[in-house]
């Protein structure tokens, strides 16, 4: 029974093992409200697994995850989402056969039950919100386009938009700029800084310039453990990190 804290996200001693291989090994992580934390590390370090554990896709074998003092371990995925956690996946995961507008409409946090969704009406207020989010994610001209026809970068933005419209307090982003052009990366950096106001965001990324631009704090993972933590400058100059990840 842990004491209530001020942290938005408190991961403690989290461990998960797949057939004996410890993908995440006693990881502890504390994120403040309103902080933008970036998690970096070589492939296979356990970063995506860490997000999987937080959002409920995988069950840990030990440890605890407290989101605003609520224990997330053992909660069903949709309950975790409803309590305010949003997850964006590594490969853009939008609804391919629905239009951009419909993708956002379906993600509106009202009418989440069977009867609620049957009688859900897309009234003026909902439309306004959808248009607002579409503007934020640079897709206001693509509302009627079928999602599978968008470019890779646009699909990433759409998925971020689908998260935003549910107004989560913790956003988990897995490689949001993978596959984007330089221009798109700049736009995404600006978008992330905007949405991080008033929310906590945890981002997994590999692009160091991007990380430097957006991060409040950086956590480096390696082989399932936390290797180093701190500001970008501190981490960049840490000899362990240089040896393992950033190169000589």
């Amino acid at each position, binding site marked *: 029974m842990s004491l209530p804290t001020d942290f938005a996200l408190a991961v403690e001693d989290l461990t998960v093992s797949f057939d004996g291989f410890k993908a995440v090994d006693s990881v502890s992580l504390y994120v403040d409200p309103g902080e933008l934390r970036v998690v970096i590390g070589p492939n296979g370090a356990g970063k995506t697994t860490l997000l999987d554990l937080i*959002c409920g*896709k995988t069950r840990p074998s030990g440890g605890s995850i407290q989101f605003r003092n609520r224990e997330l371990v053992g909660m*069903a*995925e*949709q309950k975790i*989402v*409803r309590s305010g956690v949003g*997850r964006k*996946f590594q490969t853009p*995961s*939008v*609804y*391919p*056969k*629905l*239009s951009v*507008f*419909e993708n956002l*409409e*379906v*993600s509106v*946090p009202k*009418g*989440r*039950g*069977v009867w609620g*969704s*049957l*009688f*859900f009406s*897309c009234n003026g207020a909902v439309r306004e919100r959808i248009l607002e989010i579409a503007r934020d994610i640079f897709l206001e001209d693509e509302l*009627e*386009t*079928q999602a599978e*026809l968008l470019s890779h970068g646009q699909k990433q933005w759409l998925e971020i938009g*689908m998260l935003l419209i*549910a107004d989560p307090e913790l956003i988990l982003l897995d490689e949001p700029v993978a596959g984007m052009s330089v221009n798109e990366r700049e736009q995404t950096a600006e978008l992330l800084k905007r949405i991080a106001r008033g929310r906590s965001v945890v981002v997994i990324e590999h692009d160091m310039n991007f990380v430097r631009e957006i991060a409040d704090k950086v956590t480096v993972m390696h082989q399932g453990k936390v290797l180093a933590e701190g500001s970008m400058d501190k981490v960049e100059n840490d000899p362990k990190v240089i040896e393992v990840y950033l190169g000589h």
Partner: protein
Amino acid sequence: MKNAIYNKALGGKSGTIGLAVLAVILLAVFPLAMDTFRLNLVGKYLSLAFVAVGLVLCWGYGGILSLGQGMFWGLGGYCLAAFLKLEAARNIAAEAGSDQINALTTVGLPDFMDWNQITELPWFWYPFKSLPLTLILVFAVPTILAYIIGVAMFKRRVSGVYFAIITQALCWTMELLFVTRQGWTGGINGITDLRTVWGWDIQDPGNQRVLYFVTSVLLLGCVVVGRLILGSKLGKLLVALRDTEDRVRFSGYDVANFKTFIFCVAAAMSALGGAMYVLNVGFMSPKLVTIEPSIYMVIFCAVGGRMSLLGAVYGTLAVSFGRTYFSESFPDLWLFLMGGVFILVTMVFPLGLAGLVDRLIGLGRRRPSPTAGARTRKPPVAGPVTSPPG
């Protein structure tokens, strides 16, 4: 509200035209062109179309393939047949009066119970003495069964092929249950010799024509209900969870509830069809609820176009007509033909007849985007879900 009715229930301009064409064919063309015998045959086919329409919702849009819809169709039929049988037994008893020969049968008991030395009506037959209660049970019994199956399977995330196989096993089990309990259900002969419902003779030719109209109107009603469901947010969620189930879960939806819901809707529609079959044809047999008829029901849906509610009706009529006329002339060839059609539909025409029609209309108009006029915020790019369903 009026706009909602136009766009959602009637499906906008192209949807309304499609529905009107089917309504005219069913309610005007067939009755005028056919004698009572053939019309009754069409009524029989339409009773099966209810299942195909339900499958469009649960399979085409929801991604849940059920190879055992005969279960629900049959249960709906058996419930109504029970009521009709009790009424027939009462009529026989009334006609017999004090006639000793006919009084060999126990008063008010269906004949198959006498043959099995059952002297008292079993408790679960009692509700079928009343028509209102029977009508409720026609819907309630299959829907509750579908709910139990749905919760048991979908909460455990059993889907796809495994789910399909289990539905097959379940409907076969039901057939076995009904065949072996001859005293309770009429056994392998089913429930036969049905004559009147609340005094109304179902074998009278004039009444059979009326029954045909009732069946057609109810079927069209199911199509409209299907459209309303598919036009709502729930309909879009169904498509979403068919394609990307995880994503829907991570948007905060309990996927199992949605799957169970649409499975129950399909079951309820099938049950209505089964009840109409009993009225149109006058009997119900366990052979009709088992694996082969259930697979035919899926074929009706696939041939018609599993993404099209109207297509399901046409598919049922086409395959049923084919079965009646070809299988009598070429019984061996018919099975191969059926297999060939199924392969063709799966490989070349996954959207069935409806898809073919859409393509032809698109070619005919020669526009880059096959839209009809009054679609307001539906996207111009054609995709199965984004055009008005069916």
